[in-house]
């Protein structure tokens, strides 16, 4: 073992967003020695960016709501590619998880009779999103952070984890990384490891994601031999800012549309009426008059088409811009100014008001916003057991965005925060159960530690190589232009070739400066995960020859019922050189369709009753 800082815990949790924190709270509550490791400071994770709310069928606004309706909305939003059991557990448990946050200090907005207020969002039949203005994610992360700190959780901040460690039997038993402030390496042994590393958006040019979203968990799971599923299913949120360019991609919450905002093209037309798909026609208003009645009383009219699931809205905006009816900066107009009073807008959407005012110089109470699709979320991820969140390699658990299955091919807004707290808790429980059953001392393969460190320091020792930032920018351009919102077979093949070339360039980068807080070096060590994830997305997209949810193939523009029955599974058959760029095992990823879990009859019946 190299002479580095080491720690031993029962449970190691990687990632301190909503899922990681919720898992940590659970593991702590069950008396486990728990460590939480995160790449940034505590409380800065991407969860803070979630704006609109947390979906839970509490029935506080519409008593007709219940878990079955939420389950059905989630499955239909995901185009039935979801793991049904995850969708069921999620719909059943999220109300209790939200109430639990309140018991830990969260202060949600209230109904007239003092209960938690719920707002409308795309794809949800009833007003279902518990929220705090438009800063719900911040409320959740702060609540969980404060709870975890009060419970005495041990947190390792600003530690970048490079790879998972296994014992001689292949059981995941720890991880190795480095402390960003000092550059010193640190390894952890643990009886069970929970991945809660979030998303992958930093491989695209225009994304709502922060720099941390480099897919470390997706990549480390794959390198350690775990299965990933449906990596081609990437969500482009329909409404990101498009101007100024420097803020392009920053999110504009769906809450704007839930609260009455409408989308218009350059002709001023409310164009979403032109894009209502047959699957949602029965429940979507077909005139402005009907749609406008709905906001005040959901029984007086059908839902406005602006609140169709995100994949539908994103594709519609794309089509309008392509047809030459876009806004000056290449988006469309999102108008709430003409529909709500200035006071209402400022009260219900305070962050959006400030974001546009301060970054774009636009007063959203007086003028429309310019918006367009932005890379936002990956539905695909680590294949897990629904109940325990166990990955397909022993000792490893995954929750939140890094886990696949819950959202199928398209996630509904508001279902991410609820996913974090439902499956974060379950990951904590699953890891605790596994750890409790594990006997004997936990040992890791010291060769893996040495190899990880050797690969990480190589760019510092190499001279005359390329700047890692340049490789990253070229990767972003490749993914944006070739593996974006609309895909074709030839471009995806081209992307794979480009990614292979980028892998070679990434393996030869060099960085100057020392090891202490060196962003260039940090970037060099993030590149392996970004490249592995990009390859997985491109390969999945090549194999899924259909259009479904967040995955749209121009050359296969409709859903294929047969492909709707399978997950595309990716795994490295012999994960012996984890994450070392340019080595065969990182390149050789197998992709094969495997059947979805079969939904029991009583749940399948819910879809026959639905109109």
């Amino acid at each position, binding site marked *: 073992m190299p002479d580095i800082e080491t720690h031993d815990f029962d449970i190691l949790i990687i990632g301190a967003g909503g899922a990681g924190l919720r898992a940590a709270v659970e593991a702590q509550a069950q008396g486990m020695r728990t460590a939480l490791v995160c790449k940034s400071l505590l409380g800065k994770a991407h969860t803070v960016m979630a704006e609109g709310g947390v979906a839970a069928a509490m029935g506080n606004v519409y008593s007709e709501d219940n878990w079955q309706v939420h389950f059905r909305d989630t499955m239909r939003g995901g185009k039935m590619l979801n793991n049904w059991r995850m969708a069921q557990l999620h719909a059943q448990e999220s109300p209790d998880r939200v109430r639990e946050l309140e018991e830990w*200090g969260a202060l949600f907005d209230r109904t007239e009779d003092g209960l938690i207020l719920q707002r409308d969002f795309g794809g949800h039949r009833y007003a279902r999103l518990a929220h705090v203005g438009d800063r719900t994610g911040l409320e959740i992360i702060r609540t969980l952070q404060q709870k975890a700190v009060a419970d005495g959780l041990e947190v390792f901040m600003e530690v970048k984890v490079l790879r998972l460690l296994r014992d001689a039997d292949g059981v995941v038993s720890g991880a190795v990384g480095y402390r960003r402030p000092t550059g010193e390496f640190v390894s952890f042994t643990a009886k069970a490891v929970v991945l809660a590393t979030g998303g992958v958006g930093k491989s695209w040019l225009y994304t709502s994601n922060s720099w*941390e979203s480099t897919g470390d968990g997706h990549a480390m799971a794959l390198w350690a031999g775990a299965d990933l599923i449906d990596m081609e299913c990437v969500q482009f949120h329909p409404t990101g800012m498009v101007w100024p360019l420097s803020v392009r991609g920053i999110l504009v919450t769906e809450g704007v549309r839930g609260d009455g905002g409408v989308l218009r093209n350059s002709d001023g037309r409310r164009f979403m009426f032109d894009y209502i798909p047959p699957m949602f026609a029965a429940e979507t208003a077909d005139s402005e008059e009907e749609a406008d009645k709905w906001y005040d009383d959901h029984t007086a009219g059908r839902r406005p088409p602006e609140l169709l699931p995100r994949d539908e809205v994103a594709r519609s905006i794309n*089509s309008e811009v392509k047809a030459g009816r876009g806004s000056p900066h290449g988006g469309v107009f999102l108008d709430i100014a003409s529909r709500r009073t200035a006071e209402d807008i400022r009260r219900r959407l305070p962050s959006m008001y400030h974001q546009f005012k301060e970054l774009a110089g636009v007063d959203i109470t007086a003028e429309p916003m310019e918006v367009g699709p932005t890379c936002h979320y990956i539905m695909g991820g680590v294949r897990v057991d629904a109940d325990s969140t166990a990955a397909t390699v022993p000792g490893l658990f995954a929750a939140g965005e890094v886990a696949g299955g819950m959202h199928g091919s398209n996630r509904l807004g508001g279902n991410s925060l609820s996913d974090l707290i439902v499956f974060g808790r379950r990951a904590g429980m699953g890891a605790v159960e596994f750890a409790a059953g594990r006997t004997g001392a936990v040992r890791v393969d010291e060769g893996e530690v040495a190899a990880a460190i050797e690969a990480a320091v190589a760019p510092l020792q190499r001279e005359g190589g390329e700047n890692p930032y340049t490789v990253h920018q070229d990767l972003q351009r490749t993914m944006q232009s070739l593996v974006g919102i*609309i895909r*074709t077979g030839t471009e995806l093949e081209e992307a794979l070739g480009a990614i292979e070339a980028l892998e070679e360039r990434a393996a030869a980068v060099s960085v100057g400066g020392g090891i202490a807080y060196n962003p260039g070096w940090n970037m060099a060590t993030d590149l392996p995960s970004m490249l592995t994830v990009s390859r997985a997305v491109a390969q999945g997209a090549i194999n899924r020859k259909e259009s479904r949810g967040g995955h749209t193939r121009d050359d296969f523009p409709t859903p294929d019922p047969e492909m709707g029955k399978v997950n595309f599974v990716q795994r490295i058959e012999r994960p012996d050189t984890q994450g070392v760029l340019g080595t065969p095992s990182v390149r050789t990823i197998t992709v094969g369709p495997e059947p979805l879990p079969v939904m029991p009859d009583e749940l399948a019946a819910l879809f026959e009753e639905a109109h």
Partner: protein
Amino acid sequence: MDDEPTTEPQAAEPEDAAAPPAETPSAGAAVQAAPAPDPHGAAGAGRVTMVIWRGDEGGGDFATYELPAQDGEVVLDVVHRVQATQAPDLACRWNCKAGKCGSCSAEINGKPGLMCMTRMDTLPPGEPVTIAPMKTFPVIRDLVTDVSYNYEVAKRIPPFQPRPKTADEEAAGGYRMAQIDVERSQEFRKCIECFLCQDVCHVIRDHEENKTAFAGPRFFARSAELEMHPLDTNDRRELLRQEQGLGKCNITKCCTEVCPEHIKITDNAIIPLKERVVDAAFDPVAWLGRKILNRTTRSAREAAASSPAHGPAAVQPGTPVSGVPAPGGD
């Protein structure tokens, strides 16, 4: 990809031109295409000079970077371009780039602020932009400071402890609170923990020695949030008075002015807390309670809250209400 090179974020960088990306227009590119040159794009013709502090705990100095100006940028964008093209090891913290995570605090032209929310076009045109790390915290490297003090203070605040649910609430499945009652604490829960209020607070900015017995505006707001939380039953007043140095604050309002979330820290958190602490400290019932029980209780706090207010007269600026001497200087 963009068809219009003048609007491409990195197009003006010669380093980029050396490695042009393989660009293939696709159907999916429609949304990413900027159809018309920006009318403000002409501003991109100029240059911008960034003067950035480089160094570590052992010392350092300002380094100058010149690069092309680009339209619509914030300070953080320019720092990122310096990293990507001239100084890959330039250390700065950032996450969301949208004013929501509070990571990129720094002192811009001497004024503490978030780099991601400071637009370049709000700074004097043609003049160099100076960026230094927050002064109140020890430097780790370049613009990154050691803010662990804040995380240590956070650990010492007695946590939220809710009252039990009523029978009605058990039946309804959750607590009942009126919107107007949650809004007071909601204001403080907007805090993004950028620690700019800590950075500008004279009590610790100019007096390192005060850090051991001073929580700072961020954590006064946190305590106020808990004290005003409709469900909370814990009592933090003695701690605030004796260990967190609430009395050291002489309400110069620097924290309120710097807050990017526009939280009225002084008026809505610190002054009401000072009133409550004074009430508790000098209320005879509370005093007796402490004598008998050797601790404060919620009932004493409620008694204090319902007794006639002592009013703001008890907390004149600069008055050492806690009995702890105020720091010199301000």
